[in-house]
């Protein structure tokens, strides 16, 4: 595929993630922190986020699975997940975590279980999208191109 076309595809794909509300402005902040002195920064942070999240989701699932649910513990995990997803700009995960915490406060087990399902879905969804994004970026870079900057006002 011709480089210009690849760059265009990357740009459209990136924009779509913002349009769908999967990513928010914080992701753009991370991109601003990436430069020639630290070219893999976004990938590294996101990678850390993936590792961290898998652990958190396991702990969360286990905590929700107990005979007697320790809501303080569950809240602590969701708070952590909300924080890390917010820090990388994973908006939809963050929003589900906010909802999740409301149900934790009400000690509504059914709603919490639904939120757990939802937060997992959102996580795997954004993980898949980000992996595709990084793949497209690598293709552009490998072809000798540079990554087009996304304008904040365009979404």
């Amino acid at each position: 595929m011709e480089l210009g076309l690849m760059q265009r595809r990357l740009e459209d794909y990136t924009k779509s993630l913002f349009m769908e509300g999967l990513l928010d402005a914080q992701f753009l902040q991370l991109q601003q922190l990436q430069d020639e002195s630290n070219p893999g920064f976004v990938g590294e942070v996101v990678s850390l986020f993936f590792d961290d999240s898998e652990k958190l989701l396991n702990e969360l699932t286990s905590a929700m699975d107990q005979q007697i649910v320790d809501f303080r513990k569950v809240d602590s995990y969701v708070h952590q997940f909300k924080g890390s997803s917010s820090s990388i700009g994973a908006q939809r995960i963050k929003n589900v975590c906010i909802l999740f915490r409301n149900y934790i406060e009400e000690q509504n087990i059914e709603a919490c279980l639904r939120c757990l399902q939802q937060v997992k879905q959102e996580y795997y969804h954004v993980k898949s999208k980000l992996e595709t994004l990084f793949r497209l970026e690598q293709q552009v870079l490998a072809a000798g191109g540079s990554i087009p900057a996304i304008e904040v006002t365009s979404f």
Partner: protein
Amino acid sequence: MARNGAFSRRRASEGADWFDLCQANVEEAHVLAVDDSLVDRKVIERLLKISSFKVTAVDSGLRALQFLGLDGEKSHVDFHSLKVDLIITDYCMPGMTGYELLKRIKGSSALREIPVVVMSSENVVARIDRCLEEGAEDFIVKPVKLSDVRRLKDYMARGCQPDSGGKNHQKRKQLHGSATSSWSPLPSVSSSRSRSRSQSPLVDTPAAPCSPSSLESPTRRLRMTS
């Protein structure tokens, strides 16, 4: 416009920088960052380095105190040579909270002059006030952005230091303006400049110390919901 190469990028090794107003010193200021989240530590470390700070990042209040030489144990590092110019700490941490760390630092004759900035994902008036009252210079709502980090230069011990009493009152008014005044079920899509609003309803719960509903006084709650 290409992201790499088109602009001159800031590197950690560069001394003077174009938004540096107060810092006459070419030597990089040293910031101690405290956050239990691995993701957040990586981000804050990068934010600080790209803003020309030297950074030490630790994962707990206890480790921060050890680094500062305040834990009573003999530190294996000579902390005198690792002068800290500013401490930036997360509020919600297991074990020692950022607030408790702030109190310990301000309660120490050796360390109380070091400016402390608190970060939190919960944008709540009572929490902000509590930190400012205890002597924090500023309260940053997470997620932390470059613009937040650039402001840190204003609080540098070696930089400009305006009258702290008047500054504190002004700072409080400024922070109240953007803090939670009403509860809504879901946040709207945030622009890059807006602060996120706390989503938790203001009811008492058997919650962890970092839940914004605990420790809030009824009068504050009334003010926030009016």
